[in-house]
Structures are given as structure tokens and as C-alpha cells.
């Protein structure tokens, strides 16, 4: 019942969804452009992470109505992102040159 109450407090109009859709397409075009530019791979990766995060924040906030939810529900949705960063930072350094047990083809 509580969510119904929240929805009635913040009815999102079709126009808002349309504008959000346009913004998502703009961000997709931006990501696509980044994919084709010849810049440093690390900078490209960083910028792609930024556009991707911007896109998922827009989808979660508007389409998934997360901006109208309670802060504790919003916070638990960040759990996968935080855990992914931990998993990535524990595994990816192993692929760099100075790792001692990188897989090598003999």
C-alpha cells in the first residue's frame, strides 16, 4: 500500500518518460561515438564507465521510480555495484604484467 501512496504523491507524466527516453538515446549515441574514437584505451574505458553509470542512474531513477523510494531501498540497490567494484579490484590487477601467476601459454 505504501508504494501506491508514494506513486500518487509523485505521478510521473508520459512527457517525463519521453524526455528520459530521448536522454537515454543521446547517452547511447555518446557511448557509441566513444567506442569509435581513437583515444587512450584507459581514458576510453573511464569515459564509457561514466556514460554507462549515467544511463543506469537515469533508468533506475525515472523508469524504476527509485527517486521516489525510501533511502534504504535506494541504498541496497547499490550493493551489486559496490560488490562488483570489490571483485574487479581483487581480480583485475592479476592480469597486469607484475602479477606472479598470470596464465601463460607455453
Amino acid at each position: 500500500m505504501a508504494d501506491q501512496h508514494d506513486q500518487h504523491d509523485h505521478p510521473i507524466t508520459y512527457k517525463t518518460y519521453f524526455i528520459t527516453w530521448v536522454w537515454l538515446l543521446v547517452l547511447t549515441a555518446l557511448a557509441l561515438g566513444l567506442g569509435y574514437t581513437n583515444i587512450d584505451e584507459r581514458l576510453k574505458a573511464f569515459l564509457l564507465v561514466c556514460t554507462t553509470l549515467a544511463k543506469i542512474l537515469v533508468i533506475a531513477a525515472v523508469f524504476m521510480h527509485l527517486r521516489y523510494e525510501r533511502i534504504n531501498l535506494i541504498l541496497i540497490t547499490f550493493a551489486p555495484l559496490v560488490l562488483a567494484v570489490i571483485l574487479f579490484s581483487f581480480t583485475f590487477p592479476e592480469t597486469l604484467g607484475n602479477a606472479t601467476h598470470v596464465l601463460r601459454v607455453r
Partner: protein
Amino acid sequence: MESSVAEQQRILSSDWGGGKSPFGTSWSKFMMWIFIISDALTFAAFLITYGFMRGISPAWPKQTEVFNMVLITFMTFMLISSSAVMAMAVAAARAKQPKLAVQFLALTILGGLIFLGCQAYEWTNLIEEGARLTHNPWGVPQFSAAFFVITGFHGFHVFSGVTILAIVALRAAMGKYSADGVENAGLYWHFVDVVWVFVFAFFYLL
């Protein structure tokens, strides 16, 4: 007797008495969120494993030479558009306009089906070129392994989503209509879109 009823009321209305919904949602929506979070962890593990495999590979095929990027961009467009239409279906369901909700749901399903069709076409092309789970013509076996596993899992999520939305649309058309049900199905559909945003950026563009 009366005092025990009053006591029960007092406990239920206290912060930790169980009478409140700590997350401010219905239980079904909260369970959907818990499911989405656990499913997101699955995809996070896939994408990080892919990053690791790519990191240890001495080379990685250039995606623009392997994939038809126009098709991939069109698939992305379809999924984002269907997500937007899905959000409108939820708004229509909330506004107690079941007919409009069913129309929006039908468009969402159509978007999902077009996406799946494109993916089937893409898989067929790559398989005909010799790509398998264990080897491929582009030299790095991990490349096709990551491709088939990640897009396969995502594709199956899209397929499940289309099935769920079809059931929801059918029920709405029959008048067995609940705005909460439409919203929960919508949350799942948006999640499928979110996963594709990651796959598109990190697998196809990076």
C-alpha cells in the same frame, strides 16, 4: 483484554514492532528488488570474469570487425525504447486505464521480440562463421566463450521478460488487472535493459 489490544497496537506502531514496512514498499515489489539485486550480482560476475579473461589474453579481436555494429545499435535502441514504453504502461496501469496499459505492454513485448529476433540473427551469423563456445576464427577462444555466455544469459532474460509481460498483458486484458503486478514486471524489464547497457558498453564498444 482491552489493554492487551492496546498493547498490541502500541507494539505494531513502534519502529521495530513489525507493523511498519521498513522499505516503504509492498512485499511483492520488495521481493522483486531483492531478486534484481541478486541477478545483478550474477551479471556482475560474468562481466568481471570477461574483463579478467580479456586482461590475460595477449590480444582481443576488434569488435567492429566481428560484429555488425549497426545491428547491435539497433538492438540497443529497441531495448531502450521498449523500456520507455514499459514505464508508460506502468503509468497507465496506475492511472486505472487498463486498455492503454495493454497497448503499451503489447508495444513493449514487440520491442522484446524484435530484440530477440536480431539476437538470433547475430548468433546464426557468428555460428556460421565458425564461432563456438570453445573456439572461433578470430584466435582468442575466450572471446566467443564470453560472447555466447553473456549474450546468451541476457537473451534468456529477455525471453523470460517477454513471457512474463505476455502473461501480465493477457491478465490485464481479461480484467484481472493489478497496477502492482504491472509495476513489478516493469522493474524486471528495466533491469534487463540496464544489463544490456553494461553489455553494450563493455563487450561491444570497449
